[in-house]
């Protein structure tokens, strides 16, 4: 099982690729390679990713990603904020799955505090996480198909995504940067008709996924562009830190929701789709199947939705309701203290991982016993998966690089942070 690092699996740097190409040009047998700069504004790099490629005709000889264009120092910013003020920052890391980021962070802090979360809050969290997964996969499918040349799918996907964003807006007041989860629970109770709207969405969604499948799966151009492209062996996937759908497409059966359950996932029945082809096609099929599974999890969450409070019983950590704050002395004091000086978190370190749409999203939170975190580190799935890009593209055609980037579903916001 233990893979040994082959020298060609070590990612080269940008300068290495350029220097290598110059060196090759002095070698008469390889004087025909050229260096191609792709990005940072290339439309199919999904953000601001710059790739430096050395190509021999249409064949990729080597490839180096250059990242950091979106680096805003979020990890540094967290060290100047109270614990509860970090939640909105976590949205902005991966803007396609804000709820997943919120969840990983609040679970980490709740673990440090030793808080028990009411079941209703947990169930709503899972419901929203799975809706977020569908939403993220819809953006992935639309843009991935667009990169490959199938423009229509994008419009279909964004039609359903719009409905999801409306659901998020109804529950959190925000379409994308939701910041809906709080340390200890949720920020507010969902509106009265919200669960009925979710039910309506879940009723139509499976037929919509079938519609996307109908547009793509039988299309000969789509099949030719995807099948056999960007192969990644299971050993390489593990050695290079790949997680999420690309890992499962390579045949490694690992999903945190099932294998290291958090937030009550052990109570739900769902399948973890596995493929063994390890190519772009397998990743496409896995994400489509995951959408079906997410709909099932959402349905189970709706069916078992318990009544009760949405926040834990911890007045020193959770802001009181407005009504209480205006009428009760105790609540007013708690409110004032939480807002002005935060709450102290017992010293310690935790690493909380969740299964984001892109793979293992982990928050490493270190507390020194004060109201501000000593360190918050985000382990991001795209950051690791990007390292596998070279292995997947080397020796293949330049045109396939676009398909491979699409298939690993990177979000540059979470890579650069």
């Amino acid at each position: 099982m233990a893979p040994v690092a082959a020298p060609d699996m070590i990612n080269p740097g940008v300068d290495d690729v350029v220097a290598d190409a110059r060196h090759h040009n002095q070698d008469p047998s390889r004087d025909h390679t050229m260096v191609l700069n792709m990005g940072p504004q290339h439309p199919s790099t999904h953000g601001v990713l710059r790739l430096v490629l050395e190509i021999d005709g249409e064949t990729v000889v080597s490839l180096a990603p250059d990242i950091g264009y979106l680096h805003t120092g979020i990890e540094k910013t967290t060290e100047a904020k109270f614990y509860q003020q970090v939640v909105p920052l976590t949205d902005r890391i991966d803007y396609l799955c804000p709820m997943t980021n919120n969840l990983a962070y609040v679970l980490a802090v709740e673990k440090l505090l030793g808080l028990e979360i009411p079941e209703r809050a947990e169930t709503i969290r899972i419901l929203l996480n799975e809706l977020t997964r569908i939403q993220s996969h819809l953006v992935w499918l639309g843009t991935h198909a667009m990169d490959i040349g199938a423009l229509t799918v994008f419009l279909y996907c964004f039609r359903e995504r719009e409905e999801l964003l409306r659901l998020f807006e109804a529950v959190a007041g925000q379409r994308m940067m939701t910041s809906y989860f709080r340390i200890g629970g949720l920020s507010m109770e969902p509106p009265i008709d919200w669960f009925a709207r979710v039910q309506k969405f879940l009723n139509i969604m499976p037929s919509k996924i079938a519609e996307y499948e109908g547009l793509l799966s039988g299309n000969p151009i789509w099949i030719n562009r995807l099948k056999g492209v960007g192969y990644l062996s299971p050993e390489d996937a593990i050695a290079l830190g790949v997680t999420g759908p690309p890992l499962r497409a390579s045949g490694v059966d690992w999903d945190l929701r099932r294998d290291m359950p958090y937030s009550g996932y052990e109570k739900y029945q769902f399948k973890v789709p596995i493929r063994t082809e390890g190519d772009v096609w397998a990743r496409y099929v896995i994400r489509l199947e995951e959408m079906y599974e997410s709909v099932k999890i959402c349905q189970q969450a709706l069916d078992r939705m318990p009544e009760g409070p949405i926040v834990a019983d911890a007045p020193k950590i959770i802001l009181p309701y407005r009504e209480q704050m205006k009428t009760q002395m105790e609540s007013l004091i708690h409110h004032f203290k939480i807002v002005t000086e935060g709450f102290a978190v017992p010293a310690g370190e935790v690493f909380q991982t969740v299964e984001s749409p892109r793979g293992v999203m982990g928050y490493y939170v270190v507390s020194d016993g004060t109201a501000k975190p000593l360190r918050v580190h985000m382990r991001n799935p795209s950051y690791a998966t990007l390292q596998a890009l070279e292995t997947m593209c080397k020796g293949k055609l330049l045109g396939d690089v676009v398909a491979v980037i699409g298939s690993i579903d990177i979000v540059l916001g979470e890579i650069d942070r």
Partner: protein
Amino acid sequence: MADNTAVVALADLAVKAKFDRDELTIYVASQNIVAAATAVQKAGYNFLEDVTAVDWYPSEPRFQVTYHIVSHRLKQRVRLAALLDGEDPVIDSITSVWPSANFYEREVWDLFGIRFVGHPNLTRIMMPTDWKGHPLRKDYPVEGYR
């Protein structure tokens, strides 16, 4: 905890260990990190999830390099930690054990200034190549002119 796979595998290398909030942390001496990584890999901890650092400024030893390693078979995670002095922090690279450590170690070098000996390409990854200083250090100025 004595029969935990990681504890058994690292019995000779561990300096100290703690089990806090259901998470196992094993501290190893910084010169033994490659041996420790190889040992846990042999014991079935096959997947490196994360490499990062913590700056405990102003206390000494100042830096803590943290490795999170998970076992797909055992469904368990172990955290390896190595403590480094503030003066010229250096540790061996584990890219020979897990190639995925490459980007993580570059990030730690970029933001904390911890050198990884044996890393194939230890250059800045987040900040521009001509940047001065390492922003995630606690003594890095957060306001004023640079």
